[in-house]
């Protein structure tokens, strides 16, 4: 459990503890939650691995084992499920592609898996060709998260040509609100998570000109609460993962200086468990790998010393993005 320290001056990032925490995640098989969250296992590997990369310990999870596990989640269709025996879904497929990019595993995917092309095909067939948006799976849920995920993964695979990017872009544009933000579908209320997915999708499509950057920047900067943390929408509680959704969006539109950097760093550091490792949603709560990932990503984007630089569009190490995209 994290204690709010009396003086915040001497707070620092407990890198070693966090690395150990992430390494220990697969050893909690005597806890019910380990089994109840199997539907997030592959996503969990992405969160853990991303955090490790940003903390400067990319090999703290054995890359071979990671690769084997990822390939064991792939279906004939090319899509990935969250774990062996789980149905394929856009979200786990995107995580799989991101992980493969981090462990430099695209060649292995071609050799031992169903191949890059098949993954691209799986993602492409989930596009609604009329509206441009994407489904999560064969059952037809639509969400701008899936659209972003599709462009993210396809661009890493070099296969964006398989989908109608122009139509996807106009769908995102139709989700824009008066306040400069974006919702989950046209007309839906602005929400930091959806703003990230929409702005990052437009960044991948090189269409940031469509964003009302002034208004969006204002809305995003108002997400910072007096304690330094950021919330997801007005009058809600601050949360470390929103540090990421809000901050990365601000970064993409070049307005990261519109919030108090030091206040946010302090908030994230206060949410750490400095002894056992991991970062929680806010100070005093129990840690989890999701907030550990987005807390680390937030700190990296804020330029916290001796961390690997994070790419705000992909939420992956900049060095990996550079290697993959050239």
């Amino acid at each position, binding site marked *: 459990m994290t204690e709010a320290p009396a003086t915040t001056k001497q707070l620092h990032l407990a890198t070693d503890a966090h690395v150990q925490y992430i390494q220990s995640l697969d050893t909690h098989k005597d806890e019910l939650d380990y089994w109840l969250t199997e539907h997030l296992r592959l996503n969990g590997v992405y969160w853990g691995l991303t955090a490790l990369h940003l903390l400067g310990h990319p090999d703290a999870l054995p890359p071979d084992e990671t690769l084997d596990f990822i390939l064991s989640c792939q279906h004939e269709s090319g899509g990935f499920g969250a774990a062996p025996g789980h149905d394929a879904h856009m979200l786990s497929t995107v995580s799989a592609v991101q992980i493969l990019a981090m462990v430099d595993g695209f060649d292995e995917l071609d050799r031992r898996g169903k191949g890059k092309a098949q993954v691209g095909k799986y993602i492409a067939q989930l596009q609604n060709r009329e509206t441009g948006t994407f489904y999560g799976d064969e059952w*037809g849920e639509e969400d701008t998260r899936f659209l972003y995920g599709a462009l993210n993964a396809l661009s890493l695979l070099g296969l964006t040509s398989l989908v109608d990017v122009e139509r996807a872009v106009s769908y995102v544009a139709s989700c824009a609100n008066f306040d400069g933000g974006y919702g989950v579908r046209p007309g839906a209320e602005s929400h930091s998570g959806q703003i990230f997915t929409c702005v990052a999708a437009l960044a991948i499509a090189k269409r940031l000109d469509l964003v009302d950057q002034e208004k969006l920047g204002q809305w995003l900067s108002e997400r910072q609460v007096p304690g330094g943390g950021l919330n997801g929408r007005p009058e809600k509680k601050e949360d470390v993962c929103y540090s990421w959704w809000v901050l990365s969006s601000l970064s993409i539109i070049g307005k990261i200086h519109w919030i108090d950097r030091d206040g946010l760093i302090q908030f994230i550091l206060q949410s750490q468990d400095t002894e056992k490792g991991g970062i929680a949603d806010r100070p005093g709560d129990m840690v989890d790998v999701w907030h550990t990932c987005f807390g680390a990503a937030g700190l990296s984007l804020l330029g916290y010393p001796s961390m690997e630089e994070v790419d705000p569009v992909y939420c992956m190490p900049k060095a990996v993005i550079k290697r993959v995209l050239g």
Partner: protein
Amino acid sequence: MTSHGHGIARATRPRTEEQRQADLDKIARYRTLEDDIRDRVSRQDYDQDTFSLTSKLLRQNPEYYTVWNIRRRCLTSGSSSKPWAMSSLSKGSSTFSATGTSHLASASSSPPSSTETPPSHNYPKTGMSGTTAETTEDRQMRDLEIIKSELVFTVPLLMEFPKCYWIWNYRLWTLGQAIVRLPTHVARKVWEEELGLVGKMLHRDRRNFHAWGYRRYVVDQLESAALAGQSMTESEFEYTTKMIRMDLSNFSAWHYRSQLIPRLLRERDADDQARQKFLDDELAFIRDGLNVGPEDQSLWFYHQFLASNIIDDACSQTIAPALSVDQRRSYIEREIDEIKDLLEDYTDVKWIYEALIQYTQSLSRLGQQAKPTELKDWLAQLKSLDPQRTGRWNDLEAQLYAA
């Protein structure tokens, strides 16, 4: 399972040996159930027992999306030999989405995994192998019963896990089945009851993001031709008024209101005079709110929405497109005066200064020069009241001096 923290497993607090043992027993029971379901799926056994097992597992873990999918396959692997399942659909009708997108019909014929082929070929087709053919009415009765019982199944889960996406998805899919399978007036009733449920959810939690989004979706469907619907803009607009009167600080309700207005005026066939009257009423409504709660972001959001309708050039989306530039100017001047009045009671609310600067800037775009001293004072107030956003105020300052 922890319903907070986005459904991610959190680190646990220390347990006693006894608690650990109890957890191990729970794990063993859970995994036995899971294995049982997986075995059945690998044998393509989408029968009533498998269906019941999915109920058992989903009550414990509604985040398990694959099990929701198995449940759907159990219900739609249609056959009259399965009176507890939905009837088989005639070829060409989409079973997947309420909007009937053609893409998904094709996805169904090539499921993403070879192990997940719909098992319909394992069952005799309707009317074959000795079973009596059902009449259309029989089939629809059966489907209605199943749709209703599926909706009932998800209610307690939604109450316990209101933020779990998969429950909402499954519910929407079930409702979509009503459109595909039932006569329009029957399907419409099912959807109308759904609107009642969303109302209850929003009564319990007025800011539930999912529930507001879901409400808009349900209304869209109720208005659609597939349900022989007509516009509900007036009643939904009234609904936002009601929700706002209960709680001024409801960003979701204000947002929805702003979305409804252009349609509302169009459908009312409002002439220029009616539109101006509407604008006056809305301004009075929001001003009443600001007078009691000027620290409330939701209210300023809506005020900005109205102001941008006055400032921006005429377009089909604006409330009162026929206003002359003079009228626009005097509207904004009056708002600025009203906001200045707020300063008499509230000197330390930064939103007031922000609005004053913003609207004064707009006035100069409408041809009215601002007093530099006033702007300078307001900016100084902003900087001292809101140091967190110093970078933004510096950018604003540079912008003001450049102009």
